[in-house]
């Protein structure tokens, strides 16, 4: 009996233990805490894509992908623990889904030689590959988001934003403060007035901010929120009867769970995005057959097609394509983090490729280079329809104001380079 138990335990250990030829993709997720509502669908999407690739294609270039999940709770200390715990397993790329953890990991991954992909979050100036060798934030970053919102408003107002006021409701953290500089620069260029309304973590209490908005009556409200803060803000906006179509969130403030609690009142709320929404893609049929029906779906399996699920799915797709690229460049299937980095730097996503993957027009087409780790920054606008309970794209992927953003990225990254004695590496 004892022997049997021991053998059982041993074999269980051997199955669970790391097989040598795996491609390891750590998933620093958060399924608990005030930001779990956003963390769960993203992580599910991230996991499911790798499961799909393993089940349908037999892995990446014949090598199975293995996702190591580690719960951070959006907490930087736990993020460090997760990073240290997983990096020894041969982690190929980190995607922590937290700006705070990203700031912590940027110097660490650079020293350890592991790439970091912060899609639509993290340190914006990491787009400058001259300085940030191991950090990528393609296809779009916060400043693209801010500029995209302003471009959209310019279009709505026939190119003139003079005498308009825009209030920014933001999470009072590194994440929420990111767009301020850009919005200020753009305000100088386009002549609108910018009002700043910080909301402290976690953001359940916003009465005073929305009282201020009721008093100021700004023409537009832009939100940089995350987690429970989004739902509260949208509910408060509904309470003061703020016109929803003039309320625009960043991509972290535009998912189903953010708008559902406000019910019909949230109808018309908008959010900027860098990837497509909905489940109207051929690839989700594959997910159904290869992942859901085999009982392999991550989490509760109820998130498929949600905005943040799609984002996690998209993040995993980009990681897989970069890994394929790396295999192609180096001619080996079992790639190392350093090879993965080369693959990410040479990544090229075209519409043909996305169609081939069953994800036509899922995101913008773009390519990454040594100098540009941020992609072209193409962003689109989505809008919530409360009746059908769906998000839908109401514009294509449009370019952002690179005249304003380029110098800002150069300025911030050169400050970082000077602080850390980094030399420009793309010669």
């Amino acid at each position, binding site marked *: 009996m004892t022997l049997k138990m021991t053998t059982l335990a041993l074999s269980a250990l051997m199955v*669970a233990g790391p097989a040598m030829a795996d491609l390891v993709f750590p998933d620093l*997720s958060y*399924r*608990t805490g005030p930001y*779990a509502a956003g963390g*769960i669908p993203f992580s599910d999407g991230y996991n499911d894509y790798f499961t799909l690739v393993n089940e349908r294609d037999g892995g990446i270039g014949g090598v199975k992908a293995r996702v190591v*999940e*580690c*719960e951070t*709770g959006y*907490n*930087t*200390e736990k993020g*460090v*623990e997760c990073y*240290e*715990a997983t*990096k*020894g397993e041969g982690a190929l790329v980190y995607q922590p889904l937290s*700006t*705070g953890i990203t*700031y*912590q990991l*940027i*110097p*660490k991954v*650079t*020293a*350890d030689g592991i790439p970091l992909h912060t899609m639509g979050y993290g*340190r914006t100036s990491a787009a400058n590959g001259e300085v940030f060798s191991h950090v990528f934030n393609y296809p779009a970053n916060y400043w693209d988001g801010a500029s995209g919102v302003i471009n959209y408003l310019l279009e709505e107002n026939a190119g003139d934003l003079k005498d308009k006021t825009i209030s920014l409701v933001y999470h*009072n*953290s*590194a994440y929420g*403060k*990111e767009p*301020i*500089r850009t919005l200020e620069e753009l305000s100088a260029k386009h002549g609108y007035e910018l009002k700043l309304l*910080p909301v*402290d*973590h976690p953001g359940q209490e916003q009465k005073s901010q929305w009282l201020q908005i009721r008093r100021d009556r700004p023409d537009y409200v832009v939100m940089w929120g995350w987690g429970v803060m989004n739902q509260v803000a949208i509910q408060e906006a509904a309470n003061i009867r703020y016109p929803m179509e003039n309320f625009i969130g960043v991509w972290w403030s535009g998912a189903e769970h953010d708008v559902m609690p406000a019910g019909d009142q949230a109808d018309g709320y908008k959010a900027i995005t860098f990837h497509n929404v909905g489940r109207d893609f051929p690839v989700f049929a594959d997910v159904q057959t290869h992942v859901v029906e085999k009982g392999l779906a991550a*989490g509760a399996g109820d998130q498929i097609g949600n905005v943040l699920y799609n984002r996690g799915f998209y993040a995993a797709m980009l990681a897989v394509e970069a890994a394929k690229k790396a295999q192609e460049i180096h001619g080996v299937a079992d790639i190392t983090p350093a090879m993965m980095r080369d693959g990410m730097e040479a990544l090229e996503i075209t519409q043909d490729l996305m169609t081939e993957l069953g994800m036509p027009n899922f995101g913008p087409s773009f390519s990454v280079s040594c100098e540009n780790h941020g992609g072209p920054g193409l962003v689109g606008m989505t809008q919530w329809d409360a009746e059908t309970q769906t998000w839908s794209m109401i514009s294509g992927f449009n370019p952002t104001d690179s005249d304003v953003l380029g110098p800002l990225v150069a300025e*911030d990254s050169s400050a970082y380079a000077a*602080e*850390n004695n980094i030399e420009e590496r793309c010669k």
Partner: protein
Amino acid sequence: MFYREAGDFKLSYAEDSQTFPIRFDRYRYFAVLAVAYGVIPFFVNDYWVNAILLPFLIYAIASIGLNILVGYCGQVSLGTGGFMAVGAYACYKLMTSFPEVSMFIHVLLAGGVTALVCVLFGLPSLRIKGFYLAVATLAAQFFLVWLFNRVPWFYNYSASGQINAPERDVFGIVITGPNAPAWATYMFCLIFLTFCAIVARNLTRGTQGRTWMAIRDMDIAAEIIGVSPLRAKMTAFAVSGFFVGISGALFFSVYLGAVEVGEAFGINKSFLVLFMVIIGGLGSIFGSFAGAAFLVLLPVVLKVVGVDLLGWPTDIVAHFQLVIVGALIVTFLILEPHGLAQLWRVTKEKLRLWPFPH
């Protein structure tokens, strides 16, 4: 059998009043020091240092600091997170303003700055007591976090409002930044912890500690026998602030490397350190260590057991962590209200009599 005075003769006053008067205890103490300094640095890797040892060492310093204030002087404080933030930001400003100065000096100065701030916020303790003082220190917590978020000078006008520790060294060995070797960061924090623990132990054994305890036990009686409440309370706030400041500086510069004040030094941190002190044992240096170890190690152990060994989903384990840690805290407080330090004391008593308890 163990921990007995029998046969351990003291021939001088100095021997009689040493920190560990029992020979066995003293040898145990030297053995722990020898392992900590002579063995562990050679066997640590990044994971052990960054996930377990550094948080333990740093939280131990913070809980020694808070224990002096709450456990020895009886002044309840909920401002620990805010005071750690003072240490962190003072260290950041010093590191970036004087890059050539040794990190030792920066951390000590950061402790000094925090001591001043702590005294300032301790002034109301002369008039208000107990829960009301807790509320006053709570105000310090929120004010300090707000201040560091609000005034860009503190974070050198960086766009994100974060502070990042640049690479600094001590005698040519890199201590902060990503290239710091694991053993160096460990040793750096260990030296500070040893220093703080020895200072705290000796302060609390001497006149100073007795005046604090007199104030804690009954302030009116203490005043009547000639203890100055002003001096006793202010010194307690200053010493406590010094230690908490050091821990905040190390927390930011050596452990995390990048800090966002609201997230890293929020009210949760104050409660965490307070729980460490209460679980470890109020008025005990050993208790500070035990409390810090308990609350740092337990989540990691639960995670390793739940996720790595049993293969449970990470969210279930994270929720179980909350339940188990919470249940253990309640159980401990019911079964042993004086904390882990009391358990240790009882064990020592038992060991003295073992194997003949009667």
